[in-house]
């Protein structure tokens, strides 16, 4: 706060108004100034990536660097689409992420409902185990997972990857859906039961239609987690056949070195689904992520 010098005379209403105005202006300046710094820090790298993706190869390495491409070209994106290995990886990621999402939703709905509506021995311990699975360091389990997948002959298979990716997604699915089911009034279900609904019918005809927003959030979240996953993909795939996009981009290099323009174009393509989902579900996701950690 800036103080207005007032020498020898009592402060008038005008002084207070002035002081308040200067305070407001200062606050605006501070907020916009710092805000702009944060915006630049966050977006400049992204803008640079997009700019690189839209440049012709000769301009990619130009000195001094140009933030806006002099000749705009979609050549790099065309190369990405024509790259068979990348398309393969894209398809792999799509299959694995969809499979993971589907199974996570089933486990999440059943488990979430069970935990929300029933009190049974071991309930709290199980709920905490689910949470702990979420916070569990993934690096710690790569050795046993490797052994298990090998013994099940599921190395380098979609099923194997879906199984290990579930470790990342199902805890969130259960916690988010449990939280949602907790808020559905029981009276609706009681009415349905009196009308002769059995449990599967209750879930299918009553609970699921009401939970659409939560289901969508869980689906998007687990899809993105699976879409971005890197560590498990690295350990449990080899060769090009089942390699997901994250691995393809991490080892995007050929005999001529890294073609940065093409890599940036592929990165833009890989980021789009994640950015779209996050912009839709931002608030829900933060709640889901923090809820588990903040309270039991």
């Amino acid at each position, binding site marked *: 706060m800036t103080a207005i010098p007032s020498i020898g005379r009592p402060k008038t209403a005008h002084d207070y108004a002035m002081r308040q105005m200067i305070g407001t202006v200062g606050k605006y300046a501070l907020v916009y100034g710092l805000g702009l710094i944060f915006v630049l820090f966050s977006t400049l790298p992204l803008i640079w990536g997009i700019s690189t993706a839209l440049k012709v190869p000769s301009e990619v390495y130009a000195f001094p660097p140009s933030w806006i491409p002099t000749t705009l070209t979609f050549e790099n994106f065309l190369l990405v689409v024509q790259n068979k290995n990348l398309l393969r990886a894209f398809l792999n990621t799509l299959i694995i992420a969809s499979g993971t999402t589907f199974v996570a939703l089933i*486990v999440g709905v059943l488990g979430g409902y069970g935990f929300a509506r029933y009190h049974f021995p071991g309930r709290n311990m199980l709920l905490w185990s689910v949470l702990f699975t979420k916070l569990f360091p993934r*690096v710690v389990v790569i*050795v046993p997972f*490797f052994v298990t997948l090998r013994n099940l002959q599921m190395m380098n298979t979609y099923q194997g990857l879906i199984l290990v990716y579930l470790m990342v997604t199902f805890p969130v699915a259960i916690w988010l859906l449990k939280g949602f089911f907790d808020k559905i009034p029981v009276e609706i279900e009681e009415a349905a039961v009196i009308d002769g609904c059995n449990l599967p019918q209750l879930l299918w005809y009553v609970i699921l239609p009401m939970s659409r927003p939560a289901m969508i959030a869980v689906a998007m979240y687990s899809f993105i987690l699976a879409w971005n996953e890197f560590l498990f993909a690295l*350990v449990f795939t080899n060769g090009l056949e089942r390699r997901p996009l994250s691995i393809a981009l991490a080892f995007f290099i050929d005999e001529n070195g890294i073609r*940065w323009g093409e890599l940036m174009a592929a*990165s833009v393509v890989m980021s789009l689904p994640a950015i779209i989902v996050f912009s839709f579900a931002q608030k829900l996701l933060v709640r889901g992520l923090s809820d588990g950690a903040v309270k039991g």
Partner: protein
Amino acid sequence: MVSTRRTASRRSESISLKAQRRRRAYLLVAPAIILIALMMIYPIIQTIYFSFSKVQLPALRTTFVGFDNFMRILNNPETGPLVQRTLVWIAGSVALKMALGLIAALVFNAKVRGTVWMRVLVILPWAIPSVVGANLWRWIVQTDAGVLNQTLRSWGLESWALNWLGDPSTAMFTVIVAYSWGGFAFVMLLILARLQGLPEDINEAARVDGANWWQIFRYITLPSLSGVLAVALILEIVSGMNSFDTLMIMTGGGPANATRIWGIDIYKTGFTEFNLGGAAAQSVLMFAAVIVVFSIYGGVNSRIARRQGEPA
């Protein structure tokens, strides 16, 4: 919940109903239980078993070797520096993320027009895949053609243009910045969510009483953020401990092991040196460390709760 006990005369029926409900509950959570068993309990047992074994590939034949793997870690001259690097990594990235997250949350909590779209832009790095973020930064800090060095050169700061990832003395700093860039928005969102739940009239009252901005922050805002700050801290410490993606893609643990932290070490020991027993022993130690961190957090948390007179 559907009440099953109404009158004493229906007790026997209610007991069977109760058993039925319980069976139903277990049936519902069965998939989750199976997954927990498969993905938590079994791996933990397997890892502990492996940590006391010598595991031979490709048949995965195990021979019991007692504490050999642990003794080897203890006697390895590389272990000291590894722990040190991991601590530097955790301290650096957690401090940077918390500082950026807290300041950004305070800035974007201000009720000033136009901050909403700024906030959306600031969240973007958190939303993009870690692989993309790591590649982006790898390209930015590239020695010759990277935009950072190019810009520095065009400003005449030739001596500031460094080999950011290739030089052991700058590599750790560079990956910490890249990692924090991608992660601070999560801390910001956690804190923002709490800030927006705080009643505004307390601040107003304090302002009327003559408190300045700093006093309000220090004596009102900060104490009410302590809970969420503790949560963010614990989550970031654990995720820093086992972070993998950014480091693996940007440096692969190099140069000269300068960014080889604990998580990278487990992967390399297991899957490039094919010493699964050694990797398992490392994993057991990390697992123990994670439990210690959570226990400390749990202890502190419940003490705070007790002091504030809430049930722990």
